[in-house]
Every structure is written in structure tokens, then in C-alpha cells.
């Protein structure tokens, strides 16, 4: 199924979050009037970025080594090329994206060098108020650290202020309480939390108890179920 959309409403952080979650391999195509990028993912991390003249060029080769050969890039050069191309890619704010899972074949000696968590946190520091409001839209939200938060936080290369904010995330404090206790600006806090969520460092607090707003008996529930089944 598709992972496609428009960068204006679904930014790189959101895309990277999804690709990282399922450790996807494949090619993300980003295109606007001026540029066309192919971003090669392995295990949800970015391995390589290339600019192409036409999108169909991307699908001419299924062997990643062949792609590198055509671009005259050696495996040792991957880091240098990625660092050079990443700012160009991330500067694209308007345009379409689509991800093709699989397709490209990687040999086992090629591994991603820059953790996607680091890129996500870098991008989260630049989010606008409108963007952060998409995820952190309510100051009453409560988050908790995920099981492997230490490992993810290490990969994310957090700043001092982000580390400070993370210390306050405990599954009890609301966003508002963190803001007051950590004495940080709302936008700074929202950016950090947005990044933490996207990297998987934190998750929404699971509701242990939910409230059914009607005095519902098991017998009545059974009736409702039967009625709906019979529609």
C-alpha cells in the first residue's frame, strides 16, 4: 500500500517516523518543480541520496551497488555524499513524496551510517508552531518514556535542553507541568516532544482505565451487538 502525500502537510519527520517504525527498506522519491531526489532506505535509516533528472531513472536498477557505480560513488564515499546531499533534501519544503517499499537490493556489507533519530531531532528543532500543534496540540497530554528510550536517545544526539525536558517525561506530568517545571518555552518543549515521539523515545501514556459515559449493562451491550450484527 501507498506511503505518499504532500510535504506541506506531511513533513520529513512524519515520513521518517513511519519508515523507521517498521524498519523499511526501499526508495523515497521527493519531487517538486525544480528537483527530484531518490532517498535510499535500509532498515528505516537513510543510506544514500541521489538527484535524478527523471523519476523513472530511479527504477532502472534493483542492485544498489549498480546505482553507486553509475553515480561513480564508492562505498567508502557514502558518508561524504550523504552529508553533502542531506541539507539539499531537507531544504525541500514543498512537493510530493512517495515511498516504494523493497525494490532495491542491498548487499550485507552496506550499512547506514547516520541514525535517522539524529536527523529527526535535527529537523524537529526547526518546526513551526503550526507544525508542532499537529502532534502536541494539547497541553494536557501525558507522555511516558518507551522501553528502549536510552538507546534511541543516544542515537538522537540530544541537546542539553532536550535531555532536561526528557528527564521530566515520566508518565505523570502533563505537557503544561513540564513546561512550568523545566522552565522552557512552549515551542521549545513542543519541538522536543514532537521529535521524541517521532524517534520513539517517548510514547503517549497508555490509559489504564477508560470511562464509558453511560450506565451500560452487559445485557444491554449484548443487545447492541446483536442489533448491529443484524443490520
Amino acid at each position: 500500500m501507498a506511503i505518499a502525500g504532500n510535504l506541506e502537510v506531511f513533513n520529513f519527520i512524519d515520513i521518517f517516523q513511519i519508515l523507521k517504525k517498521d524498519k523499511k527498506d526501499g526508495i523515497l522519491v521527493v519531487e517538486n518543480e525544480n528537483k527530484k531526489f531518490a532517498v535510499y532506505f535500509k532498515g528505516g535509516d537513510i543510506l544514500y541520496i541521489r538527484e535524478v533528472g527523471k523519476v523513472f531513472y530511479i527504477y532502472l536498477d534493483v542492485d544498489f551497488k549498480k546505482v553507486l557505480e553509475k553515480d561513480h560513488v564508492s562505498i567508502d564515499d557514502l558518508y561524504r555524499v550523504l552529508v553533502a546531499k542531506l541539507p539539499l533534501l531537507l531544504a525541500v519544503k514543498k512537493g510530493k513524496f512517495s515511498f516504494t517499499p523493497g525494490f532495491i537490493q542491498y548487499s550485507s556489507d552496506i550499512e547506514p551510517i547516520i541514525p535517522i533519530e539524529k536527523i529527526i531531532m535535527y529537523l524537529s528543532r526547526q518546526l513551526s508552531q503550526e507544525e508542532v500543534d499537529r502532534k502536541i496540540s494539547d497541553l494536557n497530554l501525558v507522555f511516558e518514556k518507551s522501553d528502549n528510550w536510552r538507546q534511541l536517545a543516544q542515537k538522537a544526539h540530544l541537546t542539553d535542553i532536550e535531555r532536561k525536558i526528557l528527564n521530566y517525561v515520566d508518565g505523570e506530568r502533563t505537557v503544561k507541568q513540564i513546561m512550568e517545571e523545566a522552565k522552557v518555552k512552549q515551542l521549545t518543549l513542543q519541538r522536543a516532544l514532537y521529535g521524541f515521539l517521532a524517534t520513539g523515545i517517548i510514547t503517549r501514556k497508555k490509559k489504564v482505565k477508560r470511562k464509558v459515559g453511560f450506565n451500560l449493562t452487559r445485557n444491554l451491550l449484548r443487545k447492541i451487538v446483536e442489533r448491529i450484527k443484524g443490520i
Partner: protein
Amino acid sequence: MGKKIQNQIKIVVAGPYAAGKTQFINTVSEIETVKTEARTTKSGEREVKSHTTVAMDFGKITIDDEHTLYLFGTPGQSRFDFMWDILGKGMLGLVVLVDSTDPSTFHEARKIINFFESRYPAPFVVGCNKQDLEGAWDPEDIRTALDLDESIKVLPLVALDKESVKNVLLALLEEIAKYI
């Protein structure tokens, strides 16, 4: 003998504009959905017009002589959150719909979930509508986009299809059963 009092049971169907909530309700309602939304005339904008103090849709399903289940559809835009507040009170559960072909609706859906979770934490499920259309996102990818963990059901949905809508409602009722 006087007429028996009808107890009203409420399920809220929330979702961004064009996510398919009116269709969802229509598909299973005994009555034609009462619509209070109108499309803006500005092309490309996803808004509803401004006679919005009663901005909601509703349909009904009679359960027995004493109980009627109402399905209330809310507008997605946060400027209508006063309606979310009104409808959230006393609800049995919540169905949040997204348009699987339009990732911009995921953000709006997330705001709706944030709102209800922090105020009326009733059982809820997510229906990923328009799964029959080209370009539909996989429900599991939508789960990630909405920052939802495995404890929340994120279900494929075609709101035009009765069985599909019933499946989502039954999944919600299963969730509700855990809390009574």
C-alpha cells in the same frame, strides 16, 4: 399505559472533513443522516461554512423499546471543539475516521484524539476509510502516523460498505466491553 422513556445511547463519530463520517453514519442509520455541514465555496480549502452552532450529523439505530443508539458525527476542525466537548460528555465510545488517501487528515485526526483522550477518555477505535481507493495508506502506517500503540484498534474501512462499518462498530463495542 404511557409511552416508555427512550434512553439515548451515544457513540461519537469524529473525523476531519471528508474523512467519511456522514457516509459512515448513513450506511447503518435507520434514518437519513441529519446533516448540518456545508462545503465552503473557496476551492481547495477544507472548511465548513459558518452556520455551525449546530454543526454535527446524526443517525440512529433502535436497540429495543427503551434504548436508541445515536451516532453523532462531529466536524473535525478544532474551531468546533466546543461541539466535541458537548458530544464527548456521556458518550459510550468514539470512532475516529481518517481518509486513508489523504495524510493531511491524519494530523487533524490526531488533534481530535488528543482532545478526547485528555478530557473524555472513552474507549475508541480508528477507522481508516477509503481503503478501496488507489493511494490508500496501510492502517499500520496510519497507526504510526497517529502515534498510537498496539492497544488501540486501527481498522481498515470502506464507509460505503455496510459490513465494513459494522465491523468497526463491533470492534468499538468489544473495546467498550472491557470497561464495564
